[in-house]
């Protein structure tokens, strides 16, 4: 396959979460054993919020910040960090052929306008006219641009000057898997030299809590690590920003850039989610990579969310590989949908670049201490409803 022919490197990382910002802060926090889930703001629901960010550092114009809602600010901020990390900030020549794939959902609603309209409707003589009238007067024109899925990419183009191409993938967790998969395929095949890939999520949104509460997916009442939620399953939505610069080795070498890690493979699958499907799908995706894996230098970073039955099925898959250390980062980060997989690929790149892994997050038995160096990490991503993905990240030799 072409993968061997044109190697792809991760040369830039920009990450933001409840753990802070940047690789060092994340690495330090992942070793702390401190889980800073927020149990009060949307009690009884539990979410993970980012600490306040100094957006001026990556989005210098206040006017640009005002044109965005929080999800876009987080994403544009993380994208800027990734470009900084890759040494690309302001490099017009490279940015003009940098291909962007953003994994995105939709943006914030105006909660005040929604609830005011809903509260006024019961007493309205003509509810339909009332709705039209209020929407015409209450919706801010610029809010639409903060809601459009592709306007995270649009803002990144405007603020950071990325203009090679711009594509936005949608579809919750799978969008994040496919964004990296397609970017890598294009680089492997010579269709692209360098890509900015990632996404962002704002968990401080009651409208999204509502959406996921339809299906009963939200973690409520009591926080527990991912593998210890069997008696109270659910995901804690997590604010995340995660962007990677992925680039062909030859392109990186030509501009004198060192790799953080090698991105060796990304695979995506889908099933109808009948019982056993997730286990079977992950087993199949793993089998496509297994001849490249060296168990004595390998670990798994799991994107398990804590919802069921997906988490139990992933656990069943992992139990086939009991000799390999596993870490579910969702315990620390929460679940951020589209950027979850890009975030975990970023954390995997950091891990192999340091050659080690952070300690287990719980005593469930799924996560065990590790006493050997790490040069390979398999990242899993299992959608809460649909879609399974896997990536292989390796130390760049």
């Amino acid at each position: 396959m072409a993968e061997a022919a044109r190697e792809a490197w991760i040369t830039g990382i920009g990450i933001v979460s409840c753990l802070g910002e940047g690789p060092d802060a994340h690495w330090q926090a992942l070793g702390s054993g401190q889980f800073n889930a927020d149990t009060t703001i949307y009690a009884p629901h539990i979410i993970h919020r980012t600490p306040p960010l100094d957006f001026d550092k990556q989005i210098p114009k206040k006017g640009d910040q005002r044109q965005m809602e929080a999800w876009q600010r987080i994403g544009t901020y993380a994208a800027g960090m990734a470009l900084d990390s890759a040494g690309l900030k302001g490099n017009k020549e490279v940015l003009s052929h940098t291909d962007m794939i953003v994994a995105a959902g939709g943006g914030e609603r105006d909660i005040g306008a929604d609830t005011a309209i809903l509260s006024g409707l019961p007493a309205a003589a003509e509810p339909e006219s009332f709705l039209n009238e209020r929407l015409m007067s209450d919706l801010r024109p610029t809010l639409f641009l903060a809601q459009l899925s592709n306007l995270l990419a649009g803002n990144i183009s405007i603020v950071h000057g990325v203009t090679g191409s711009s594509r936005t993938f949608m579809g919750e967790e799978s969008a994040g898997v496919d964004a990296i998969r397609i970017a890598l395929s294009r680089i492997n095949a010579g269709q692209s030299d360098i890509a900015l890939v990632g996404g962002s999520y704002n968990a401080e949104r009651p409208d999204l809590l509502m959406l996921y509460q339809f299906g009963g997916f939200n973690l409520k009442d009591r926080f527990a690590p991912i593998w210890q939620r069997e008696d109270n399953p659910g995901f804690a939505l997590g604010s995340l920003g995660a962007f990677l610069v992925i680039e062909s080795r030859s392109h990186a070498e030509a501009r004198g850039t060192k790799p953080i890690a090698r991105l060796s493979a990304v695979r995506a699958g889908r099933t109808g989610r009948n019982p056993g499907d997730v286990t079977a799908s992950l087993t199949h995706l793993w089998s496509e990579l297994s001849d490249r894996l060296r168990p004595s230098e390998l670990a798994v970073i799991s994107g398990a969310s804590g919802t069921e039955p997906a988490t139990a099925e992933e656990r069943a898959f992992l139990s086939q590989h009991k000799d390999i250390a596993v870490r579910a980062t969702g315990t620390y980060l929460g679940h951020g949908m589209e950027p979850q997989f890009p975030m975990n690929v970023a954390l995997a790149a950091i891990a192999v670049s340091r050659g080690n892994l952070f300690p287990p997050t719980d005593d469930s038995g799924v996560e065990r201490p590790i006493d050997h160096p790490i040069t390979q990490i398999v990242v899993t991503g299992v959608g809460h409803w649909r879609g399974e993905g896997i990536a292989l990240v390796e130390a760049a030799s």
Partner: protein
Amino acid sequence: MPSNQGLARDSAGRPVVVVTGMGVVTSLGVGKTDNWSKLTAGQSGIKSITRFPTDGLKTRFAGTVDFVPTEPLSNPALSERFADLAAEEAIAEASIGTRGDFPGPLFIAVPPVEIEWTQRRALAAASGANANVTYGDLIRTAATGQFASLHERFMFGSIAEHLADKLGTKGSPISLSTACASGATAIQLGIEAIRRGETDAALCIGADGSVNPESLIRFSLLSALSTSADPPEQAAKPFSKNRDGFVMAEGAGALVLESLESAKARRAKILGIMNGAGEMTDAFHRTRSSPDGKPIIGCIRNAITDSGLTPDDIDYINSHGTGTPENDKMEALGVMTVFGERAKSIPISSNKSMVGHTLSAAGAIEAVFSLLTLAHQRIPPTINYQVPDPTIPLDVVPNTARDAKVRHIISNSFGFGGQNVSLVMGHEPA
């Protein structure tokens, strides 16, 4: 004539990508036959909105598709229904795979999905909160489980997942948005996958069923929509001096893309060639094009270069042509820059003058219409062209369809967020 006609690889050594099946749904009707006859007759699908009350709205017409019953009504439900119809037509024409077993991936452009007022109101009513509704009430009501189906329906990935379930497409289906260029991006992703050799076939769809009060109002508040309601069918006036905005519309376009080699091996009828695609992002502004037109110019040039052609090979331009003052001016500037003196003599028309702006679907629908233009050697007109704009001295094929010799077509799609994509289609590989 290209010397390498019939070869499985193009001049860049890549697999040649052909089209072997097409399907379309617009406000003009369901299917290619109905759409093509009305499109070449210069008929408009724009009419007054009857789906919901329009009291108090500045724009009260659209290109809705009301003749495809869908219950319960929502943007994703409609989009999925249109996509399904177009896909069925395309797959049947391509006669590829077996029923429920399409031998390739799905790339589908869909509108942004979110809970709409219908559901929000039902939830508020069920909450019993009456005149003091909070999101806490809505969340509490959501937790009762009585609205459980809304979770799946309002997942961004649900349209693609349902179609993949039904059609048996392979791998993870990709839902995407590049705003009003989305349909063209779906096709571009399919072209790239076949060129990489990952697959012999791909199903590329653009679908949109966004005509609901809030979506309409959002565009209205950006002053993007035409308000000239008298009569609605004359509201979309691309390239005219009195153009005053686009007309929201719905529909879907679906294309079965295939490697030429695969199509020949199974003796499929080849409907046209996807010669190439190009894109260039505009970093100037969220809704406006760079005043120098460079991204649009670069996009068109990239598409022609990717096709292994030159501007002289293009015989017709299927324009983005939304009818907004800004788009048509900038598109004309782009065309005049790329094609130079020849620009004035290349026919350029806007399908949107008749079917309206189908947003996420437009690039795919217009690709289908472009391929029909090639097949029939007949160019659909730009209707409602009564007041020429002296700053756009182009042959817009005013009001009446025209027979013409057309070897290659470029179809442009531009969207909010700096999205620009152009596709080049033809009869023969370059």
